[in-house]
């Protein structure tokens, strides 16, 4: 397995330039845009002295190159500045909210993958039959549904009218399980706190399923496309000729091979999942980074906005590395 280890290290080294570019883009988007951060914070009618003071505080009077180097240097030691609103370190605030986003996106990802793999494979297996046509229609219609609208409909049906599920928040007050991973579902499971587990599960059910279903539209289409390509390959025909049962042919031979391209595209879709999470968190008052970002925009908390975007960029790169490593683990050809 040393080849896998070697691959992981190379992959991490390769991610560094991409991270640098993203950091640079975030920096320049937020600095060079016609809107000035100080005006954004204070509004256009602020008195000039206050503006001047603020500019000095934020280090905006330095040449842009100096600002850029300082910004990178601070990021390297994990310093994202302090929130202008709460005056707490931005990174601390983000890390507090990060587990909620991880929990939501993981749950949604599982939902999307399950729907995607099942429908995508079945559609490919019954190409051009009713299953296939239904799956294709599902993909294109669900893709057209705004996630926040879908969320509101779920709230209306299951929360407001049926009173089955809570429509906002992550867990009821005082129900938090002992903190280990800070993913409530996992913590409650580890500590055997069934009451908390049930409560947290009821809370994640609506937002997580909403996000998962919307993202699943892309997964269904991708899995179907890749499965169709794979099912036409020789080794699938050869497996059939060996008398392997059709289900094993589809799920063991074809799916496992289609998985590498599927995972790669799923990795790209992770960005979309996060974008969806920002909206879903807002709809369901889910206390993650997305709703944090939106809230900070309302208060024009510049350092917090920049910090959360940098953090999201970092998160995406880490996920893309992870996906490549999983790929290498599944497909031995990659790591050699």
């Amino acid at each position, binding site marked *: 397995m040393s080849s896998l280890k070697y691959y992981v290290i190379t992959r991490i080294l390769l991610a560094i330039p991409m991270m640098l570019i993203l950091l640079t883009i975030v920096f320049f988007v937020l600095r060079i845009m016609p809107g000035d951060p100080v005006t954004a914070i204070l509004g256009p009618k602020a008195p000039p002295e206050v503006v001047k003071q603020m500019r000095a505080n934020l280090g905006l009077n330095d040449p842009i190159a100096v600002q850029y180097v300082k910004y990178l240097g601070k990021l390297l030691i994990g310093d994202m500045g302090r929130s202008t609103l709460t005056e707490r370190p931005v990174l601390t605030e983000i890390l507090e909210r990060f587990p909620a986003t991880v929990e939501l996106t993981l749950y949604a990802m599982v939902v999307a993958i399950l729907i995607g793999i099942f429908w995508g494979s079945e559609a490919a297996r019954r190409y051009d039959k009713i299953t296939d046509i239904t799956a294709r229609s599902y993909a294109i219609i669900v893709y057209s549904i705004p996630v926040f609208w879908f969320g509101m409909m779920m709230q209306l049906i299951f929360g407001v009218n049926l009173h089955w599920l809570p429509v906002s928040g992550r867990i009821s007050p005082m129900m938090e399980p002992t903190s280990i991973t800070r993913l409530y579902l996992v913590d409650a499971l580890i500590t055997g706190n069934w009451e908390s587990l049930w409560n947290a599960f009821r809370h994640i059910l609506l937002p997580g399923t909403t996000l998962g279903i919307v993202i699943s539209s892309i997964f269904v289409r991708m899995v179907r496309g890749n499965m169709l390509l794979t099912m036409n390959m*020789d080794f699938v025909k*050869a497996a*059939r000729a060996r*008398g*392997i049962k059709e289900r094993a042919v589809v799920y*063991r031979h074809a799916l496992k091979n289609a998985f590498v391209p599927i995972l790669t595209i799923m990795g790209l879709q992770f960005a979309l999942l996060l974008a969806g999470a920002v909206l879903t968190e807002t709809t369901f008052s889910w206390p993650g980074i997305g709703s944090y970002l939106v809230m900070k925009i309302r208060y024009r908390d510049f350092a917090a906005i920049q910090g959360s975007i940098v953090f999201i960029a970092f998160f995406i790169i880490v996920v893309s590395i992870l996906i490549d490593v999983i790929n290498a683990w599944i497909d031995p*050809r990659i790591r050699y």
Partner: protein
Amino acid sequence: MGRDANTLLELEQLRVYYNLRHGIVKAVDGISFTMKEKETIGLVGESGCGKSTLGLALMKILPSTVTMMGRLHFDGEDIISKSEKEMQSIRGSKITMIFQDPMTSLNPVMKVKDHFIEMIRTHIPKISEEEAMSMAAKALTAVGISESRLNEYPFEFSGGMRQRVMIALGLVLNPKLVIADEPTTSLDVNVQAQIIELIKELKRKFNMSMLLITHDLGVVAELADRIIVMYAGHIMEISDAIELYESPKHPYTKALLHSIPNTIIEDMDLSYIPGSPPNLISPPKGCRFAPRCDKAMKICREKEPPLFDVNGAKVKCWLYGDKE
């Protein structure tokens, strides 16, 4: 029709049609022949003549758009009326297939041993993993590969070695019939020779029957007892292998023999057959080869010839029959 004790395969007026949007492709259009146990039949023809479709039809691994008609009996059992589930138990255990391109016929993310174990366990569900492994090792040794390589992935093997693995997979359950679809076509010339030698040896050792599908008359010459020449979904000639090479009868067979380099008929120049095979959606009336045949007569374009008996061979050509 009585069945001889040693008849393995019996085809009568077998038709395999693809129903496509723009018409029906009659890929196999009324084929009849029988195959005895331990016999090797070479099925020869240009690409697109229906020979590969016929091979797949024997195992019923065809897309759902295909209709099969006629009689197809294997080992006394009616294949056409069998359900998919029944077919699955026949495929791999009684009939196996070796494919053209060994580079793509093995699952790239499965170890070689997993190919064997999956297959053995599908057909013998109660077998232990150790027993399955020892069967796999035996089969692999028989094709000249060390059993230590069972733990490797397909991409660690060369093309010729992969074809050996495919052959071992085909033989591991001692099938009655092996269908080899262009088993050497995509290999290097010297590797081709090795694989042909291997197949010869295995035929002796395992006493198997074999349907060898190829466009290469050179390959069948070395392996087949009898040869069937196919053209545009029809059988043109059935003959003993030696007889076919020494005195080909059908104009198409002659043309095929002339078009291969290194042919046994040495004093002929290398030639090619003018024109191209007909469209199988609306094939020509009469003999399907007539439009390309240099000996075509008036009747050839009007009436389809039957298979005439000529010195023990069967030939579908008006040159050898009563024109009535």
